[in-house]
């Protein structure tokens, strides 16, 4: 998408391994020269811009459960790395138990793109603007990572390090996302500010949730995650702490919106100014929490 974007993808070879371990071996043998491929919607754009220059794309779709989505009433939801956003949002258990993720997913780009783009890919791409990341954070998501030294779990809460930067190392492949069963009474809202009505990147995104929690004085937990206003997707812990003592009311919501505004660190870029983004964090946090108040 840059001025000097090439007309087509650079030359690379396409590798279709038969298993995740075969994929892992290939990645280990070609450090810095190979990249795992799932939906491709972020990779192809970066390649045409000359940013990604790998000689091999290793297709992990369909390997060892990467294209499976499954719900267990006790353990929760497991979304394979290759499961498209449309499949996720259409999955009955997602609509029933994780509607916030369905809403967030449905706000991405276009229906066509969502047939290829994946939730796990959205997470690994680690753009601060990633639409589904807020929901996955608030659902306490954990990534399954297949690395050169075996499998490990990466909680999303510690996964993001900077724009496009995560705890993934060369040779790692995220193979699935696990979302535990949400707490009883969990309600959520995703508000996304676009420049036009649909299909845009989030200029500002506010994901909010609340659920009854007898372990805190106020009786409920409230959390928010912000998109596009910090180097990473931003969980505003100050808001969570605030609502440990305060009940959700119109007054406390206004105060929380101010806290959120104070916590975010947006920049000026071609999509918006920091000043506008800060105000929108405040206003959309207010709206999101008010919507949740009604639902609780």
């Amino acid at each position: 998408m840059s001025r000097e974007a090439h007309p087509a993808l650079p030359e690379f070879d396409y590798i279709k391994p038969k298993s995740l371990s075969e994929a892992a071996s290939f990645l280990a043998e070609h450090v810095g020269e190979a990249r795992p491929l799932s939906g491709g919607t972020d990779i192809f754009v970066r390649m045409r811009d000359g940013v990604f220059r790998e000689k091999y794309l290793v297709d992990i779709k369909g390997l060892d459960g990467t294209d499976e989505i499954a719900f267990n009433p006790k353990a929760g939801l497991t979304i394979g790395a290759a499961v498209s956003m449309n499949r996720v949002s259409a999955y009955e258990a997602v609509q029933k138990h994780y509607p916030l993720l369905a809403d967030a997913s449905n706000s991405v780009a276009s229906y066509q793109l969502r047939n290829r783009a994946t939730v796990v890919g959205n997470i690994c791409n680690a753009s601060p603007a990633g639409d589904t990341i807020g929901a996955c954070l608030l659902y306490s998501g954990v990534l399954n990572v297949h690395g050169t030294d075996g499998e490990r779990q990466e909680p999303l809460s510690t996964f993001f390090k900077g724009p496009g930067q995560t705890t993934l190392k060369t040779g790692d492949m995220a193979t699935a996302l696990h979302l535990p069963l949400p707490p009883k009474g969990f309600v959520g809202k995703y508000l996304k500010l676009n420049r036009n009505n649909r299909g845009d990147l989030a200029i500002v995104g506010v994901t909010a949730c609340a659920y009854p929690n007898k372990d805190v004085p106020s009786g409920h937990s409230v959390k928010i995650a912000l998109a596009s206003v910090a180097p990473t997707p931003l969980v505003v812990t100050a808001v969570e702490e605030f609502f440990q003592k305060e009940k959700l009311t119109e007054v406390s919501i206004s105060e929380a919106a101010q806290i959120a505004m104070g916590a975010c660190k947006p920049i000026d870029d071609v999509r918006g100014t920091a000043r506008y983004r800060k105000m929108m964090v405040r206003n959309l946090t207010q709206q999101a929490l008010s919507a949740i108040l009604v639902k609780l």
Partner: protein
Amino acid sequence: MTVHTITVNVNGEDEIVEVPAHWTLLQMLRYRMGLVGTKNGCAGGECGACTVMLNGAPVNSCMVLGVECDGAKIITVEGLSHDGQLDPVQQAIMEAGGVQCGFCTPGVLISARALLDRTSKPTEAEIQEALVGNLCRCTGYVRIIEGIKQAAKLQKP
């Protein structure tokens, strides 16, 4: 440059195609298979002019590699009509006046076909949502949306 040989079913016909690994499905259709009905508008997954049906789902063919389609079933605009009969989406969008320069039309038709495959009586909002990824600069979308509503009525339940 590595060239792969794949088999793919396109518009009902099984084909064997040789395609460079780094070519998109769009390039493969247009430059290896002579199927120039599907258009190149942006190569970035934004404009939807390249939309085709891949295993029943509408996708931007510029964001799919040709090699990823080994064994896949693809429908392009050329495959929408059957035995000389236009698909209801072609007939209705044409009659509603939803075609001007025609460049976005192949992609629009696939998105419309896919919508009516999954929702037989879509609402106006559902139609608009389904078309968000198909940019049109000529029509202002009004007659395309009207055409899809008519197509929903035309097609057998």
